[in-house]
């Protein structure tokens, strides 16, 4: 009642009347809390991280501006070069696996089957369970002495001696890739499933009438229409995987012999454990320009689509 009465009686303040009359201004006013939050929680820490990466700051000391020295030094650091390589192998392998398996899973879940909704819900479990907890379980499964994976594989006769899942450089990378794929697959599958469900059935019916088989239908109808969804999930997953920390930190801590050291784990060790936060910030920001270009290109593509 009060608001109605207020609306009926024009405000006595002319500036307020002008302000409320202008839609654009009201719009800015309404989004200002969100802008404020983004400025404080996202923009400020980001700008601060960029600034710190340009200094030789160590914990507890202000440090001085050194320009791009941290970045140039990193390029000469053999451990960092290995970290870059590991990060690319880790990210591209997992994103590729998640995409292929995600499409297959989405196609299966799009079929009629008993308990479909229950299965779709259960699929989200790896995504919902706190990563640190689920990765601890994987750590036990890959344990050098008590690995249940080895136990089963030995029992089935697939392997003749136990695999050093986390102790061998090659298998350690395979292990973190497996766990990341397991963790991220639901995101791909559910997003792609949502995309699949928006494809009109008529297109498939028309294709069938024209004699197109399942493979051709997938190639000429499903895949092209799923492309925008695939682009978005790949973009997000690439960014998340490049910035991943928990899985590698808990499973291998970057080892053995730096075989799984990636940006986030190396930045953590250098910045927080060794106290060189200038260099640590440079490690975590190293790929930012490249990722920015990828994001811009993908967003442009999406807008065009």
């Amino acid at each position: 009642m009060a608001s109605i009465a207020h609306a009926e009686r024009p405000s006595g303040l002319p500036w307020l009347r002008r302000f409320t009359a202008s839609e654009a201004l009201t719009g800015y006013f309404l989004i200002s809390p969100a802008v404020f939050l983004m400025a404080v929680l996202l923009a400020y820490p980001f700008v601060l991280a960029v600034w710190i990466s340009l200094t030789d700051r160590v914990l507890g000391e202000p440090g001085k501006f050194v320009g791009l020295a941290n970045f140039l030094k990193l390029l000469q650091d053999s451990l960092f070069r290995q970290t870059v390589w590991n990060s690319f192998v880790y990210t591209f392998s997992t994103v590729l696996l998640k995409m292929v398996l995600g499409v297959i899973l989405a196609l299966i879940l799009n079929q009629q089957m008993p308990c479909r909704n229950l299965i779709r819900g259960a699929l989200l479990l790896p995504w919902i369970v706190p990563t640190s907890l689920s990765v601890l379980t994987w750590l036990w499964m890959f344990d050098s002495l008590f690995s249940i994976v080895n136990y089963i594989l030995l029992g089935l006769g697939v392997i003749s001696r136990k695999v050093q899942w986390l102790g061998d450089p090659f298998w350690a990378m395979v292990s973190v890739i497996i766990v990341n794929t397991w963790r991220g697959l639901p995101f791909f599958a559910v997003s792609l499933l949502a995309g699949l469900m928006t494809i009109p059935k008529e297109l498939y019916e028309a294709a069938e009438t024209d004699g197109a088989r399942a493979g051709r239908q997938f190639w000429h109808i499903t895949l092209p229409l799923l492309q925008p969804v695939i682009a978005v999930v790949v973009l997000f997953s690439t960014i998340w995987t490049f910035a991943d920390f928990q899985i590698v930190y808990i499973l291998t801590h970057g080892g053995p012999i730096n075989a799984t050291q990636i940006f986030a784990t190396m930045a953590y060790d250098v910045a927080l454990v060794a106290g060189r936060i200038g260099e640590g910030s440079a490690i975590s920001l190293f790929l930012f320009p490249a990722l920015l270009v990828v994001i811009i290109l993908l967003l442009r593509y999406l807008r065009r689509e």
Partner: protein
Amino acid sequence: MRQTKKPSTGPGTGRTVSRRAFLGVTASATAALSFGTFIRSGLGAAKVNVLTWSNTLPAMDDVLREQAKQYTKEKGVEISFEFINQTDLPAKTAAAVESGAGPDIITLWSDGPHLHDKALVDVNDLADGLGKDLKGWTNIAKDIAVVNKTWKAVPWGIIPIAITYRTDWAKEVGYTKFPDTYEEMLVLCRKMKEKGHYSGFALGRSIGDANQSHYPMLWAHGGAECREDGKTVAINSPGTAKAVDYVRQLFKEAEIEDVLSWDDSSNNRAFLAGELACTGNAASIYWAEQKNAPQLRAVTDHALWPKGPAGRFGYSTAISLGIFRFSKSQQESKEFIRWLLTPKQYSAWMGIGEGMMAGLLNYYEDDPVWKKDPKLEVIREIPKYVRMPGYPGPPTRYAAEAMVKYVIVNMFARASKGMSTPETIKQTESELREIYSKA
């Protein structure tokens, strides 16, 4: 509106209390209580917040909790302990240093006093006083906590790392005593492996065991990452080559392959499962056997790290108590640390740990805990041989960085996986040069 003025009737009492009177009384009572709390917390009793690690032996933390209560009762200063996972300490410490807010007292890991010296209060009076009262500090205590001739923290103790081995399996191959040299240790471990009993020294990214096992092997063979100045890289030496050859041989001839993936708890689990003959560890295995594997306790013993051509060395994680400059209770914090390190309190804490912790004040070398069990006696000697990463130089930020990047451990791990000695040393030298170039 009228209803609010109408007196309400208390259920069953027959007394009437108006809403206004009720609000008035409760508001006054709340104000009085809040003021009382404010007076007690802000103006009256001081408070000291301590951020520390969650000990591997929870019983040791229980002792601290009790002691905090006792101190509050006796001195009127409230002590609040916050126990967190050891691996979370660096991040929490970094956050406190950067933000200038956090606990009053912080538990610093090994090189912590050197890493955070500028954020810490000088504690010369406190450390000197304790030294004077309790037979002086061991040399390693000074290496850990004295930065530029100033005590920046008070060493709380070390987690002594000893050889932990199976006496029954050693006896099976003819050893009634653990060998005193690395060469003999290799022979023993090789013989035990021939009988199916593997040894294992962590070579993965375990910040404790892997570093604590392999720095001593490097030093004992005459190798070192840098010179006394703490700036010049000196890894490329015949001593390092000997150490690398030794570790490769030990890995191939006596160790379980799993060591490359081991974290700090892996060797404990393997030993307690009866799968391991010899390892480097704190007394936590022996301690856990009481409950989890009592049948193994009778056949488990400890030994000092063997001697190499350059002598006997050890590296055990040290913990120190530092007071932040931003603390408003600096004097109270100093008093509490002094109280905590005096014999009544310290012996009670160290005694519960049964070898899990060793004091760095000479007085505690004769603590009753070492006489409790002959198998713990050898642990008493460990502080004498302990050096910090960076030895023979001081434990600098660069030595800390080399350690957290596992530069030394990886040198040995690469050799164990087949890389030649000159090649792995060359790679290590290049990594160390990158780190020490900032010195």
